């Protein structure tokens, strides 16, 4: 089949674009920006071809080759990877086109386009990996590119600091992830050595997903839980989950298009994808006892961290005045929803992967749109500060409307109860978030009587609607509050915005059911049921999920929309009508406002206390002291002792033979004495 032979081009073309743009970008129009656009466009077409093939045949595309030692390189395109591929290439393509206009006046264009091409390639590497090590490698390259792009304007000290913070914070997660891989290798090796005592046959790649998934039931359950928790640690770092989310709001220092790439197409979705990719391992991880401590089942941890993050981040989104920062917190919060959805897998099984991925894709469209709208606003007003904006609707109609559409999607506004051929009617954010809250966390609560994830989901939805429309009303309505005369952005930019806005509105409705069925085919349902059994869970079937969701009381069904519309109205009352004075709540005398505006003092804790005071001030400087004064002090001490001794010896060395003879006699006598004493004793 033809597609199998060219799938390697999907990541290879953007890599080639990286090299070419870096080498020749300066001499080309638009800093060589058309090279990555062309490359990613072809990658996108191949991705669609791959999708069509596996959609028609139902057989995933697998290509693998020996790399070195016990490792392989390979490509795996199953339904999960396929939808991700199309999203990444398509959204990244749009963002690249937009960037031609957005970056037009930046002298660093060649470097910009080279790095974004590599960024896309790395993300595609994550998506296509057929083994966990290759996944990790591409994952790290994603981290590298985010470092380079967040620090793109490296002359700005804040940009350089934010880039470093992003890399180091995600690195904490990466180390956990790497530890997980190391332990997984050892566990898989044990499994295979038991089966093949004479030696593991050549061509068995212990880190390949297919090999791992076939042997999950043989892996020691305690190890499995530890491994998946460590993997999740990696996902927490990359996907900005609590407590490793601190880098993401600062990652705004790069160009807005970079933010759009990071938040929509690449990078942050990698963590969610990791959990979805290794979902069979997650679902099979039981709660275990380790050294007297009970470790909860991994998916429970995923659900709680995700739900908490969804709520926690949205509280901070309420008070930010930087337009991009509001969106950054919304990303953290929405990623929390995706994790929450995955965490529901212990009850709803593989449907959890479908819901999470569906929200991921929808989120990519509306978040890319939101960021690019924000970019359009910043481009024309020259400020990030919402307080300096206002009344932009009259000047920037397309930006205003597309941003409204994507805000409606983010807030999850739609029409409850109304379903046409089983598809709910509403913005794409509504369709996917509603599924997570009702068919995910409500069903979960109904089965397990644990209502906490559900509560996280609903509360976060309320806050999301408030901050989203706070942003929109502050920017686009009311009196203009700046001197400059804003203007609409060029057509390459507004065109991209319009495409994304259409997707933000209708993609959810059009694809909900086929999407979930298709992605559901990634894993075999019976196998997932059996694996869930290993963790002591009973997974309920698709029909049962729908059944429970349909029989929910109307209040429950309405709740997500009520909070969404309620939040919108609240924002309208405060920030548009201004019936309630913002200043009376939002000032530093209000302790609640203060703690939110200070972002729960995370900067003080993570940066100043842990990094600077402890790691540098205590560990590093104590090490420096011990090295210079103690370790090296001993060496210098020994040498000065010897030199001092030599000075003494120099005096003994008289050159008079008689003295030497005396000393020799004395020495021999002493030895004889010692020896005779030994005999006596």
């Amino acid at each position, binding site marked *: 089949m033809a597609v199998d032979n060219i799938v390697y081009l999907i990541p290879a073309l953007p890599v080639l674009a990286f090299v070419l743009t870096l080498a020749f970008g300066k001499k080309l129009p638009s800093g060589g920006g058309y090279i990555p656009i062309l490359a990613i466009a072809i990658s996108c077409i191949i991705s669609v071809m791959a999708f069509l093939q596996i959609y028609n045949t139902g057989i995933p595309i697998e290509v693998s080759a020996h790399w070195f030692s016990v490792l392989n390189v390979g490509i795996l395109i199953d339904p999960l990877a396929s939808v991700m591929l199309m999203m990444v290439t398509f959204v990244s393509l749009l963002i690249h086109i937009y960037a031609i206009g957005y970056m037009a006046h930046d002298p660093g264009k060649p470097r910009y386009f080279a790095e974004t091409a590599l960024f896309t390639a790395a993300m595609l590497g994550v998506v296509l990996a057929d083994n966990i090590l290759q996944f990790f490698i591409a994952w790290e390259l994603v981290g590298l590119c985010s470092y380079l792009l967040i620090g793109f304007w490296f002359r700005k000290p804040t940009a350089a600091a934010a880039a470093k913070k992003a890399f180091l914070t995600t*690195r904490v997660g990466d180390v956990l992830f790497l530890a997980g891989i190391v332990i997984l290798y050892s566990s898989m090796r044990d499994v295979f050595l038991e089966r093949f005592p004479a030696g593991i046959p050549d061509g068995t790649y212990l880190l390949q997903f297919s090999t791992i998934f076939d042997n999950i039931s043989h892996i020691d359950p305690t190890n499995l839980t530890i491994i998946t928790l460590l993997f999740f640690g990696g996902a927490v770092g990359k996907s900005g989950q609590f407590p490793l989310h601190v880098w993401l709001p600062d990652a705004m220092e790069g160009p807005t298009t970079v933010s759009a790439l990071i938040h929509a197409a690449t990078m942050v979705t990698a963590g969610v994808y990791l959990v979805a990719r290794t979902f069979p391992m997650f679902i099979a991880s039981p709660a275990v006892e380790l050294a007297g401590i009970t470790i909860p089942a991994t998916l429970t941890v995923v659900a709680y961290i995700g739900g908490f993050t969804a709520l926690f981040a949205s509280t901070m989104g309420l008070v930010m005045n930087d337009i991009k920062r509001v969106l950054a917190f919304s990303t953290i919060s929405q990623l929390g929803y995706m994790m929450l959805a995955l965490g529901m897998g212990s009850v709803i099984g593989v449907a959890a992967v479908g819901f999470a991925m569906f929200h991921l894709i929808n989120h990519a469209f509306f978040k890319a749109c939101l960021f690019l709208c924000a970019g359009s606003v910043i481009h024309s007003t020259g400020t990030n500060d919402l307080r300096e904006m206002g009344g932009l609707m009259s000047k920037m109609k397309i930006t205003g409307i597309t941003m409204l559409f994507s805000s409606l999607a983010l807030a999850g506004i739609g029409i409850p109860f109304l379903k046409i051929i089983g598809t709910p009617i509403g913005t794409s954010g509504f369709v996917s978030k509603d599924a997570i809250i009702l068919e995910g966390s409500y069903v979960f609560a109904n089965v397990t009587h644990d209502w906490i994830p559900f509560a996280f989901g609903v509360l976060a939805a309320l806050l999301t609607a408030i901050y989203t429309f706070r942003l929109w009303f502050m920017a686009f309505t009311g009196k203009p509050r700046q001197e400059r005369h804003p203007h609409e952005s060029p057509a390459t930019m507004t065109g991209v915005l319009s495409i994304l806005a259409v997707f933000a509105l209708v993609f959810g409705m059009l694809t909900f059911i086929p999407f979930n069925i298709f992605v559901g085919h990634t894993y075999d349902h019976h196998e997932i049921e059996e694996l869930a059994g290993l963790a002591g869970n009973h997974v309920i079937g698709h029909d049962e999920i729908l059944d429970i969701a349909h029989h929910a009381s109307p209040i429950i069904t309405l709740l997500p929309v009520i909070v969404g519309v309620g939040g919108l109205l609240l924002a309208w009352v405060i920030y548009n009508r201004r019936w309630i004075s913002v200043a009376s709540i939002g000032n530093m005398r209000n302790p609640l406002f203060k703690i939110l505006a200070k972002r729960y003092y995370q900067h003080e804790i993570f940066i100043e206390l842990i990094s600077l005071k402890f790691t540098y001030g205590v560990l590093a400087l104590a090490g420096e002291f011990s090295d210079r004064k103690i370790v090296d002090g001993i060496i210098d001490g020994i040498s000065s002792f010897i030199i001092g001794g030599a000075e003494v010896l120099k005096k003994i060395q008289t050159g008079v033979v008689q003295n030497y003879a005396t000393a020799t006699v004395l020495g021999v006598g002493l030895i004889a004495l010692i020896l005779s004493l030994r005999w006596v004793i």
Partner: protein
Amino acid sequence: MVDYVLSLILFIPLIGAALTLLFTKSRESARMVAFVSSAISFVLTIMIYLQFEPGIAFLGFQFEEKIGWISSMGINYQLGVDGVSMPLILLNAILCPLTIVYAWGESKLPNQFFALILVLQAGVFGVFMSLDFFLFYIFWELTLIPLYFLISIWGGPNKDYAAIKFFIYTHVASLVMVLGIFALYFSTGVNTFEIPVLLEAFSDIVSAEMRVGIFLALFFGFLVKMPTVPFHTWLPDAHVEAPTAGSVLLAGVLLKMGGYGLFRVLLPMMDSLGPYRSSIITLMAVLAVVSILYATFLALAQKDLKKMVAYSSVAHMGYVMLGAAAFNYMSVSGAMFQQFSHGLITAVLFMSVGVIQHSVHTRIIPDLGGLADRMPKLAFLMMCGFMASLGLPAMSGFIAEFMVLTGSYLTLPVYALLAMVGIVATAGYHLWAMQRAMFGSYNEKLGEPHDLANFEMIPMAILVLLIILFGVYPGSVMEMFEHASKIIPGVMI
């Protein structure tokens, strides 16, 4: 292939050194003669590298040469290569010509300078090729002399202290090693200094205490050379004062002699240590993890960029020790690869620091700032080097560290996990240094620096390409190491 190809590779730099020292009048001719002779060695090395066959039995050497020398003592001039040494010989053959190119602008006593680099190269070749312990020791000591002079003549303000400290510290360690060699020679009673014969005879030594004593004496010699905490303090001092070319070769190939000793001599003895084996392994593992963590935090504390890089070398060599300690083929081949990879990476780092020193006359991190603005080429290559050094995948350091960590976890899980604690701090000091030295607004006090000259850029760019090449495709180098480590007696497969 000529019969004495190893001798050719070994002696051409020595002849080149003599020519450079005695017959060149100008800087231009000195560096050209030096470059040509190291380049000939390089070409010959590539030729034997391509002919080399991995997978020959334990102690099976290729391209062997043997000439009787002091027959009463059983001392021969005997050379040969196997999978342990072949890639390291390649490393030495790559680094020296690149260092000579990098030092193209050296104006202080150029003929002596380049001659010393060639002597150093020959000494290191000799260590990696010798199959006779006596010869091994001679080459081992030979490497001290050129580096001593490189530091004490071309060094920084505190060069005398650093040079003497370097010389005496490593020389004392070598003497302990010599005691070990003689003890091995006399207690086996085979009346030869042939390394393969002595290694085979080691297990015949009756007294287990004697075997451990020999092992520890040799171990001490290698330990100081690598160096391993707490015997590392000569290294930062030497680096801080050494000229860039000296630092590149010190970190790039001289330290590798210590690790080479572990693989060549000590690991084959490991299986004969009897009841002491597990304590020795614990000792090695503790030293390794302490080196990794301690040196990493020290690197974080440094204000001098070069000293930071020096401590990072100590930490990276800790991985070599860890992989050796874990004593399974995955960890051992990873450790061997770490040696090879670190040689390439650290060279880029020292070259970057050297360019900064040369161009703005300081390398104290807080005094720098925003250099990327004026020196974009340097910033690019330095970033590549730093990323490689912090273990970014798709670069050679990651392959090595992954193999070491994964392998070590199989036999020494706690130590492997402890070593990983250092990974974040490693990224921390690299990026923090980058941020303060290279990014932010340009510090105008530094004047108008020039970006990389071509003779600086070319070697750095070649090294970066090699780092990426071996990171993406470890290929035959890894294959040689793997075969070499699989056949060590007693190693866990």
